[in-house]
């Protein structure tokens, strides 16, 4: 009885440390690799919709992963690709490949606030950052879609590396999935990412639908992940600038 009580008290204290909550969330989401086909619906402020799709490949996990996103539709951007190399101690490196002109282009840090190919995701939103790059503060508890969540504030330690001054994230208590992000520039809420359709895929709780709302433009993009698989065989040399050209 006393041992159970000790475990409960320890868990309670552990859960109150926002950094450890985020660490645990990232730990539970770890896999050697991930692959999915993304179907995107972009809904403009006037209600007009357009759709896009991409294939996403990721090798490694939070803080040190490499990812390639390659558009498959619409036809005119088929083959356009983005390479993201995440680093544990600094912002990611990103390159974009445009097959029509046969050139790759590095996406400079100051350009990451730009929307990614007409979606409501910015280039920065496509990177994964390690917990060590942020300071965290527990704001309280707040349910999302009826599920109890911890609400945590995160501030980038190197302020120049992010367009966002701070973010609020909601992490579900039951499965440690990040259920929502709100991103602020100064005091203004500019983007909200809402996670839904949370499923257990190969032992990893995963939000298969992400909705990013750009609150300044009043537009939103819904990303649905299809054919999602973890720990698929991917090679390290598929995540280089040379591979972007080769795999066109």
């Amino acid at each position, binding site marked *: 009885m006393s041992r159970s009580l000790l475990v409960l008290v320890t868990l309670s204290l552990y859960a109150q440390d926002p950094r450890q909550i985020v660490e645990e969330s990232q730990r539970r989401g770890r896999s050697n690799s991930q692959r999915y086909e993304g179907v995107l619906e972009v809904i403009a402020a006037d209600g007009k919709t357009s759709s896009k799709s991409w294939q996403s490949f990721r090798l490694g996990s939070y803080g040190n992963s490499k990812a390639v996103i390659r558009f498959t539709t619409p036809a005119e951007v088929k083959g356009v690709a983005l390479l993201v190399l995440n680093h544990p101690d600094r912002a990611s490196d990103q390159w974009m490949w445009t097959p029509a002109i046969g050139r790759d282009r590095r996406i400079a840090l100051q*350009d990451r606030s730009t929307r990614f190919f007409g979606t409501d995701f910015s280039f920065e939103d496509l990177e994964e950052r390690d917990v060590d790059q942020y300071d965290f503060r527990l704001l309280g508890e707040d349910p999302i879609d009826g599920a109890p969540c911890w609400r945590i504030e995160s501030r980038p330690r190197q302020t120049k590396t992010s367009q966002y001054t701070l973010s609020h994230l909601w992490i579900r208590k039951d499965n440690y999935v990040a259920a929502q992000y709100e991103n602020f520039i100064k005091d203004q809420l500019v983007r909200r990412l809402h996670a839904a359709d949370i499923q257990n895929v190969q032992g990893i709780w995963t939000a298969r639908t992400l909705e990013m709302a750009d609150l300044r433009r009043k537009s939103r993009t819904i990303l649905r992940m299809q054919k999602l698989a973890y720990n698929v065989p991917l090679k390290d040399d598929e995540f280089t600038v040379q591979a972007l050209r080769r795999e*066109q």
Partner: protein
Amino acid sequence: MKLLLLLAAAACAAAQSFSQRGFLESTGVFYPQTAPNDSGLAVGESLFRYEAFYKLTDLRFAAGIDARFDTHQQTDRSLDPSWFDRTRRRQPLAVRTFNATYTHGKLTFEAGKQLIRWGKADILTPTDRFAPSDFLNVVESDFLPITAARLTYGTQSNTIDLVFEPRLTPSRIPLLNQRWGTPIPIAEAAPDFPGAPQYGARWNHIGAAAEFSFSFYNGFDHLPLFRLTPAFALQRFYPQLRMYGADAAIPLGPVTVKSEAAYFTSTNPQSDEYVLYVLQLERQAGEWSFVAGYAGQAVTDHRSTLGYSPIRGFTRSIVAHASYTIDTNRSISVDAVIHQNGQGEWVRAQYTQAFGQHWRATAGFAIIRGNAADFIGQYNRNSHALLTLRYSF
């Protein structure tokens, strides 16, 4: 039954390794003024491009064709397929790509007809020596593929690129009897193409703070000089050329600085020796994208009397590009090249809008002004409007 399942599985696997893309594009170009050698005021052209890719573990194959037609005899009417793109006019059927790529660890070997792009600058790329262009319309150019073997070795941070091109693919220059060509009172003789190969090497470094590369090219210029034959005809020839080049991209706080420079020498007594360089700044902010810079040229040994080089002709200029994404389907862009002496300027504005998953329309205009003795200014009667409709698949 097992065989059927096996065949079905194989077909499924093959389908996953095969991809294709292409488009059918029709453009109307409208000129408000006639030119001394061309009374036409409108040109219509259509291009169908199809590319297919097949991946087989470490091997990849790519094949593509261009089929085109126009109303202004810029395209040959003969249906003979073209491999080396050495014809004066565009070919109605041309091989765009046909190559195989083998990858093993850090090594990639690519052989066949392909596009090879070097350099980092956007508006003018002096080190881009394996990229001849179609300059029939001068300001609306398109890169031509070359037949080459390319070996790339390295990791993400350091790569070495070796290219061997056994036969020169020249740039296509304006037709003499049309508005972008210079009218001359004498006949044009058959061109003198070099028989020797060209080769080059490029080392590229990607660092956390900057990217840079050094390149070397030895071969022939894909842009011609002219000489008079004994029969008093004008003949194109492609002089020997050696290039030592470097380029860099450095993200610096508010902007990214890109610079590219190349020094060109030649053993040909008619060919200039010169330096081309570009310094540009770029920035994306919200829905805006800006590129602005200067393209310069310094002739170290002036020898040539008659040649045709849009690349050199666009130097000694302020160059700029700006674009704005209105929404997912619409954008506008403006490009400009303005000679520093004020003798020539080209400004192009375009509006483009997508319709659904496959269609895109582009409408725009280009204003060309200047002195007839200036490279850009000589086309001062070629300001035009254009309308393009593209179906992509």
